[in-house]
Structure formats: C-alpha cells, structure tokens
C-alpha cells in the first residue's frame, strides 16, 4: 500500500480550537513514482496517461494521479515531446553530438501501450538540426497542431542562440519544406512550446538554469502573438526574441525550479499543464513531474493551484450561497434577541443593557466597542470562539441529512473538511477527496435519487469520492466519482439559491462553478 504524499505548507494555530476543524493547509503532490526530468507533453492512449523525459525514461498512469515507471522510448535523447494526430503518436527526440551540434529525430507509433500489437515504433528521420556553428541548439522540441488551420509546427532550441520554429507535415509528422529557413522566435531560454487560446498564440519557454537541484533557477515564461510565426511579446511589451517573458510559474515553498511546460486539456473547459520541478524538497530534492490547473485572466495563462486539504466554505459562484446540512443553524456565539428585555439586541452578554444602550444616549458600537458602556452593536467585549461542532451537532439527526444551500454565517453545518481519500485513486493532478462536515465524519455523498445527501459517516464508496478541479476562471468543478444507477459524469449544480443537485457539466453555465474559501 502506497502512502499518499502530503505537503505541509502552512499550519494555522487557532488559539481556541473547540472542535477538530482541520485548519492545516496541505498541498498534495502527485503520487507514486514521479521522478522525471524534462517531461514531454502528457498524452492519453487507451485510457492511460504517458510521458517521457530526458534519457527516454517513461512514466505511465491509469488516472493521472498515481504514476509508475513505464517503458523507455526506443530512441533515447533529450527532452522529448509527443503529439497524437489521427491514429498515430509522433514523438520528437533530440540528441547533441557537440556543444551546439544537435538533431531532432521523429519516431512514431499507433499505440503507446507496449503490450498492444499496434505498438510498433517507426523511425521518421531528422526534422530539425543545428550544425554547431549557427546560433541555435536544436534540442528541446515542442510540437503544436494549430487548431485553426491544422498546420503542424515545431519549436526548439536551448540557450545557445534562438528558439526556432519550423513547419511539419501533419500527415507524416516529418519536416515540411526542409529548405525553408527556420524562424527565430525567442532567445535566452529553452523547453519551448506553443498553445492557442481565444485568438492568441502563446509561446511558453523556460528561463533560468536547470540541473542544479534546489539551486536551479528554472521558471516558465511566455509571450503572445496573433500569428503563430510571432513576434511573441510579453505583457510589458518586450519581444521574447529580446529576452522578454511574462512569468507563468516559478518556484514555490517546497518545489524548486519548474520547467518544460506541456498543455493537458481535459475538455469541457478544464485545462491543466504538466512540468517538472528540478527539486522537490519533500522528496529529497529529486526532479519530479507535476500537474497544475491552467487558468486564464486578462488574456494570459495563469498557473492555478491544486486543492489543498483543509476546512472550506463551498460557495456557489452563481448564487453566492453555500452548501450546508439541512439542519437548523445556531448563530456563532448564540442566538441574539431583537431588543427589549434587559439586554440589547446587539448588546452581547451582560445584564441591564438597553437596545441602544451605550451610556449618554450614544448609539452602540463606537469607540466603546469591547469596553464599558456597551450598546446595541458593541458585541461581548471578548473574542467569540468558533462554533463547537460537537455541541451543535448534538441536535442534528443521526441518520442521513439532506444538503441545501444558504447564506454563509460561519456555522458548523456550513464548514466542510476536504481531504484526500486514502487509496482511492485520483485524476490528473489530484486525488479523489472526501468532503465531510468539519469536526465530524458526516460525509457528502450522492443518494440513490441522484441528489446530494450527507451520510452519517464516510465509508469510502465511489458516491462519496469527489473530483475537484479548478476551472480556467479559478472557480472549481466538483464531481462525484460515480452516481448510483447512472453512468453519466455529473457535477454539483446550484440549480436554486437554496438547493444544489447534480447535472451534466455545462462549461458555459455558472451553475457548476464553486468558490472554495478556506476557513
């Protein structure tokens, strides 16, 4: 049994922890054997995910979360890249025969599964090269199929001179017009790749130094252009051929030196990207594969974050209301009256305070808040601790409880702990999660009627496992691993302000978009 790897990036100490609210913010890294350097773009073949790194080392995964060693490429070299066109996979592998003398070779196959009879690698020859004199180093290929006109392009290069662009034949993967001069797109970078989004071509390339462990300055930068042939300009107006580049992702607290961008589009508006980090400090500084959400803002890609474990408000982007158990809530600090009696409506604790009871007729919560002479809006004068879920849940039904939505008031039935479900597998970049009311084992699940329900305890069933993916606008899609009596892939949908259901994900609707606010 593999032990899931967790990363403790932040621990918030709560001075009054009246319940078992999990306030630790835990980032999750890919599981399994993820050691790799210069990974190719991740591709799928027969339901499996594949990538290869420098040296031809392969990784394979059944779900995109847990990885294992795969078979090596028949041609080894530097930083391969791969693309699936029609019924073939085209792999481009580079090798240096001198400092800047290099060649990029094509190999192709119908299947990436070594056990498939269709896995027959064929050599396709050299598609680009550098002669050791010219101002380029023909390694680090990045292959790109233009979705607009289906022309196939290859970018390549590494520090010694320019990042270059040549056109390939999408029918064969080979070089188109070998006599044409390559176009220079960028300089002072390597590991380039192209993507297209909303009328713009983006050139992503890795700046900084590699191969020095935690001292590696690798970081992924980008420029954009209206034409695939450039020029690629960063957000400050500097051409990448002059060294420009807007940062996409740099080092984090425990992951150092990201490089070798590869787009992994999961469809329905969900995009992720792969890369390697030169040094994973939690794995002894090893170079590892990682997958992150790819967001978009103001016309530029933005590196998202995989979900961190912790306690959250789950708020609908559509309605602004939050998922909660359908139980009567208790205001944090207790139920206040509405004036009258001996205590002000907002007067906090203490006897004899009037509704607007500050002395001298002043109204409430001015400078006197927290001190003597408390008025209607002055509070108690002391911090109010978080709600004790053990106390308030004593009034909740013992069995299944319906789930609904309401205005968020920081009450116990509205706080959900999201944590990785052990040994439950995952999806590209993240494990399946369980979602429980913070401080309890009451688990969000899908009932037999394909509606949300909270079970008394988490038992690990697929209807209790959740796939939580960040969408390109930064909101989240929440999908159960499976729905009883249904083969459809459904997502939680805010069909009403006070009610959520499950329905087929619609990328154009905000009903399936959720804001996760850590509590």
């Amino acid at each position: 049994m593999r032990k899931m790897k967790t990363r403790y990036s932040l621990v918030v100490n709560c001075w009054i922890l009246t319940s078992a609210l999990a306030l630790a913010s835990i980032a999750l890294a890919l599981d399994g054997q993820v050691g790799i350097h210069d990974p190719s773009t991740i591709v799928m073949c027969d339901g499996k995910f594949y990538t290869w790194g420098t040296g031809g080392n392969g990784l394979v995964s059944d779900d995109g979360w847990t990885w294992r060693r795969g078979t090596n490429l028949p041609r080894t070299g530097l930083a391969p890249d791969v693309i699936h066109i029609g019924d073939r996979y085209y792999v481009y592998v580079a090798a240096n025969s001198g400092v800047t003398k290099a060649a990029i070779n094509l190999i192709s196959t119908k299947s990436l599964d070594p056990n498939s009879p269709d896995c027959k690698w064929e050599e396709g020859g050299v598609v680009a090269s550098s002669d050791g004199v010219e101002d380029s180093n023909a390694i680090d290929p990045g292959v790109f199929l233009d979705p607009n006109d289906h022309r196939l392009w290859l970018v390549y290069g590494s520090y010694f001179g320019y990042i270059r662009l040549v056109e390939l034949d999408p029918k064969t993967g080979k070089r188109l017009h070998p006599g044409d001069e390559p176009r220079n797109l960028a300089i002072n970078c390597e590991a380039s790749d192209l993507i297209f989004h909303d009328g713009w071509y983006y050139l992503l390339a890795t700046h900084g130094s590699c191969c020095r462990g935690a001292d590696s300055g690798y970081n992924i930068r980008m420029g954009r252009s209206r034409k695939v042939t450039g020029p690629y300009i960063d957000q400050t107006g500097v051409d990448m051929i002059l060294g420009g580049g807007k940062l996409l992702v740099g080092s984090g607290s425990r992951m150092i030196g990201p490089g070798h961008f590869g787009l992994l589009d999961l469809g329905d508006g969900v995009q992720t990207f792969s890369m390697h980090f030169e040094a994973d400090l939690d794995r002894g500084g090893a170079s590892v594969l990682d997958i992150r959400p790819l967001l978009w803002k103001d016309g530029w890609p933005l590196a998202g974050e995989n979900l961190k474990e912790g306690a959250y408000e789950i708020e609908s982007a559509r309605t602004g209301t939050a998922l909660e158990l359908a139980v009567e809530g208790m205001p944090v600090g207790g139920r206040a009256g509405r004036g009258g009696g001996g205590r002000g409506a907002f007067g906090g604790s203490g006897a004899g305070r009037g509704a607007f009871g500050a002395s001298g007729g002043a109204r409430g919560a001015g400078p006197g808040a927290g001190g003597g002479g408390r008025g209607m809006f002055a509070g108690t004068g002391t911090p109010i601790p978080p709600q004790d879920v053990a106390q308030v849940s004593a009034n909740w039904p013992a069995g299944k409880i319906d789930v609904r939505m309401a205005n968020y008031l920081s009450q116990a039935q509205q706080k959900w702990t999201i944590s990785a479900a052990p040994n439950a597998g995952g999806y590209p970049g993240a494990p399946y999660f369980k979602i429980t009311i913070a401080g309890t084992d009451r688990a969000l699940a899908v009932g037999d009627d394909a509606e949300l329900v909270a079970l008394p305890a988490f038992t690990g069933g697929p209807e209790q496992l959740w796939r939580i993916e960040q969408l390109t606008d930064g909101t989240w899609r929440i999908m159960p691993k499976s729905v009883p009596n249904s083969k459809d892939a459904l997502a939680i949908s805010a069909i009403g302000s006070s009610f959520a259901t499950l329905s087929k994900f619609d990328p154009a609707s905000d009903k399936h978009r959720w804001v996760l606010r850590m509590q």
Partner: protein
Amino acid sequence: MNTSMKAHGPRRAAPDNSGTHAKPRCAATSCACSSEVNFKTSLLPLVVVAGAALLAVVAVAQVPPVTLINSPAAAKAPDADGFIRGWFLLEPIPALGLTDNAVQSIVKKEYFPEQFTVIPKDGNKVTVGGTELTWHSVETKNYNVNLFHFARALGKETSNVLFWAVTIVNCPQEMRDVRLAIGSNAASVWWVNDEEVIGIYGDRQTVIDDGVSKRLTLNKGPNVIRGAIVNGGGATDFCVRFLGADDKPLKGFTAGPGEIRR
C-alpha cells in the same frame, strides 16, 4: 439557513413592491382588523400599543391590491417564464417564528379541518381561533403573488402571519423529473400532491428559484400544489414555477384555482 433580519431591520417600516410602506404591526393575537373580502377600500383606525403606553393612533388605508385581481376559478398556462399566477389564498393566520423548527411547527399545526387536503372555492370560509377567514381566488399581474397587497387590501395583518396558498396544476400527460421551484418572503413550506417537497426558512426575500425540490413526477390530470408562507415583518410574497429535467421553466400544463375534475 438564514435567520438574520431583513435588510430594512426589525420593526421598521419597510418599502413594499408598490412603493408604499408597511403599517406598524398590531399584536398578532389581538388584531382587530376587518375580515371583509373582495379587496374593498376603506380606512381602518389602528391603535398601536407598546407596553401599557398609548403611543399613537394612526389611520391605516385598505389599499387596493394593485398587483392582484379577483379571479374566477380558471386554469391558465403559466406565464412566459413559467410562473403560476392563479391561486387560492386564505386570509392570514397569526403565527410567530421563522427558524426551521418554528416554521415546521407552525405549518404542521392544524388550524382548521381538512387543512392539508382541502381544495377551496372562492368565498369558502374557515374559522381559526374564533376568527372567520375567507379563501380568495386571485390572479397576480406579476410573476409573484404579493401577499402584502393581498392582506393590506383586506385590512388584515401582514406581519407575523401564516398564509395558505393552493392551486391546481393540470397536466396533459405525466411529467417526470420536474422540480417545484419557489421563492418566498419569508419562510415557506410546499407540498405537491400532499407530499412535502420544499422548505425554506429564516427571514428572507423572494428570490426566483430559491427553493428547488428534488426531482418529482406530476401526474396526468390534476395535481395539487399547496404552500404555507410564514412572514415576520414587512413585505411578503411568493413566486412558484416548475423546472423541467433541463432546468428550464416547465411549460405544457395549465394551472390556477379551480376544482379538480376527474
């Protein structure tokens, strides 16, 4: 669950949908308001007492229900957005409380015989706590049914009250996987063919599709929709429609106050 006060605050005259203001409430259990029907307009002196002190004597107008008309029992297609505009409404019953448990207790209490099964007729009367209350067949001009207009036109209390609403939905064929979608000011509980399908609680404003039921089936022929709306203070109204399996407003049926024809 929302247990907060309305935005306009407690015991403060609140703007209603017509731009007028809610009257100060009288004690729910001692309301001496008129029980006239048919939305007659008159003036009604109202004495507001706080504690033992006489604070004010004001004249409260029975304002015509500008958004409602007395409607003959008739079933009509829902409006362009799917809202059901025709309803039987019972004059308000004093009720106090908006939390989940309080509302459930209020709506489950039996105030008059056959309360949970009756299909009323316009002008039918029931007696609640010694007060005779009348069922009215109404049609709203808007997507929502303005209960404040309804009660005010009758000189009835609008705050801390319970309204019962009933309508009949006639379906040409069975309709599966539809949902009842409601909004209400304030809390409300709803039944379809005697089964409770939605409850929304707390002091809240009417929002279209606020409460949405789980998937349900409407029978071919008549289906009884019954709602209980509990108001705290100020404005009060509700809106009701069905959503189809595609989450869009359901059409292809008629609805309104009427008799069940079998």
